[in-house]
């Protein structure tokens, strides 16, 4: 027989081992590396703040941080609006459960192909010679192609929204589906207007979903370097893209210092979100 005192430890062991192996150790390596020095070929193990000094005193870093936050906020806003609206429609307007599930699955269909394919498919559509521009020119709305459609901030945000809306929608849908119809009926009986129901009942009760979705979207956007490179065509940049550039040139410690900076920058919005909504308490509810 196993001693009873050991049972809880055994229960958390699988997760604890995973977390140590795949989170704690890599993070420790990253932090260690950020204090080393590199000349572009070999690494010198030492303890130096040079990398941090370079990162924090560079105007570029702050500019990139601003760009990163801009993309995060824009993407968060649009995915929230779209995700919330879709969930709202599915939960409160589609009464048939089977139809509801079917429509929900429909939303996931684009996710059956890879991220890269879904992203790249925008290129022939938005390009100067692309479908959209050709269409507008055929209709005579414009006489020369709109260049801002591709290789621009617009293209980057559009792709993020396309790729990440589902991550916002699913948690919101989940919380909305838990709202008991009797609560809403009671509100209607008490004379609440549809807007009041939305504002005072639905939004407060779905905030867990909103918070979780926001965490997903914000972290995904802030850590991305691929979408921004391909869709931005090198015309836009963020911290992760600059980090990738450093890694490509073998300046690992510089990239590591930037990564630590980015982790802190991502933690701030996450902490704020989690302060506003106590996700754990709400989920346990």
């Amino acid at each position, binding site marked *: 027989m196993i001693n009873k005192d050991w049972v809880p430890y055994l229960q958390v062991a699988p997760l604890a081992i995973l977390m140590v192996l795949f989170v704690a150790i890599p993070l420790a390596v990253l932090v260690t590396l950020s204090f080393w020095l590199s*000349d*572009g*070929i*070999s690494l010198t193990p030492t303890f130096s703040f040079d990398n941090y000094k*370079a990162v924090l005193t*560079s105007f*570029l870093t702050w*500019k*990139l941080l601003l*760009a990163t936050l801009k993309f995060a906020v824009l993407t968060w806003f649009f995915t929230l609006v779209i995700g919330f609206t879709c969930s709202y429609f599915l939960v409160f307007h589609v009464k048939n459960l089977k139809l509801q599930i079917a429509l929900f699955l429909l939303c996931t269909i684009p996710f059956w192909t890879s991220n890269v394919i879904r992203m790249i498919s925008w*290129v*022939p559509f938005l*390009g*100067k*010679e*692309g479908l959209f521009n050709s269409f507008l020119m055929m209709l005579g709305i414009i006489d020369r192609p709109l*260049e801002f459609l*591709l*290789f621009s901030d617009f293209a980057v945000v559009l792709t993020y929204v396309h790729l990440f809306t589902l991550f916002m929608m699913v948690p919101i849908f989940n919380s909305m589906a838990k709202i008991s119809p009797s609560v809403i009926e009671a509100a209607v009986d008490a004379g609440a207007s549809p807007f009041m129901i939305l504002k005072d009942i639905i939004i407060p009760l779905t905030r867990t979903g909103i918070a979780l979705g926001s965490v997903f979207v914000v972290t995904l956007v802030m850590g991305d370097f691929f979408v921004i*490179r*391909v869709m931005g*065509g*090198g*015309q836009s*940049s963020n911290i992760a*893209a*600059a980090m990738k*550039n*450093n890694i*490509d*040139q*073998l*300046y690992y410690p510089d990239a590591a210092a930037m990564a630590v900076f980015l982790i802190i920058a991502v933690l701030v919005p996450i902490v704020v979100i989690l302060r506003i909504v106590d996700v754990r308490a709400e989920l346990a509810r």
Partner: protein
Amino acid sequence: MTAIRKVKKGVSRRTFLKAAAGGVAAGSGAITGFPTIWAQALKDVTILQVGPAYSVFQDIANQASKDLGFKIEIQNAWTDALMTRIVNQPETIDIADLEFWGMRKMWPTGKLQAIDVKKIKAWEKIEPIFREGKYANGEPVSAQGTMPFEVTYVEAADAKGFAPQRTELATCVPTIYNADTLGLRPDLIGRKIESWKELLNPEFKGKTSILNIPQIGIMDAAMAIEARGDIKYGDKGNMTKEEIDKTIEILMAAKKDGQFRAFWSTFDESVNFMTAGEVVLQSMWSPAVTAVRTRGVPCTYQPLKEGYRGWGVGMALASHLTDLKRDAAYEYLNWYLSGWQGAFIARQGYYNMVLETTKAALSPAEWDYWYEGKPATVEIKDPFGNLMEKPGAIRDGGSYAERTGNFACWNTVMDEDKYLVQRWNEFIAS
């Protein structure tokens, strides 16, 4: 008993192979010079070659394995990843296909071993640009950037630096090279482009691109800036901080004015930009031009009066190779210069360092098209057999002599590399 039988079998198989390889392997003599007993043992050797996708191909490894009787395995890794591996896990590589500028960084680490020039049969037939640092006519080659000759020889096997003149020990066997220039869409430009400065010409506003690899991108930019007359560089391949600053300033101003449509980081991106017509004039690599043309879109690799930016790859041996494995590696190096690889790589527009064997392995019609600059008399196919050009087409830039007689600078990594990467990040983020 068994051992003897095995040896005999090995010898006969080898002899047969030698006879069969006959014409192709002439001059390389890939099979001679080993104790017979090793011939059988060689069969169990596996050589792992690692290098970028434009130089290391499965097709080449398959053919070599067939010809040599031992196994060649390949892995693709871009030069940056390859260099990290050489430094940190040298035992995971037997042969590295390294660009010459990478050699400048890699040789001093001591992870590579010197190659005995005398064991490379075709060494004296390697193009003089690489073997002697001179053109065939004796003229010196531009030393801006990393001129391959500067990093090809060493004085002693354990030397940390490079020898300024020819020695009998080499850091690598030079294998392939090319001359890079601008690619363009002749149908969308409609006039003659003769100078690098057109890259910054407002006429092509929003329709140009340079590559987003700091070390090479800045050289292409420098070619354009110098051609326009803004800056006269001391050495485009090793700029001072001030020169980097000025160059980035000009680039940022051009970017602000919307000169560049985008910046490409991968081969595929450059092909897509051009095919889609997003860009009409950009830095390009020769096989990318080939790829655009294979899709039926006109694309020209335009020779420019200021000259080409050259680059080359050499095969280097990891220092852990000894005895049998090292002998096998030498055999493979010799095979590489024996013709088959030269013909394969020629069909994607690159040059093997040894012309004689390449010529023997190409059909005369192919030789005339790829090397002599004559109109194609047959259908020209790429290395994988896809149709590329119909009879009558002429290769851009003309003959081999014209294309490789005018190097203005070489791919490199500068002393101020770290500063350059930092400023380049600023440029991209601006």
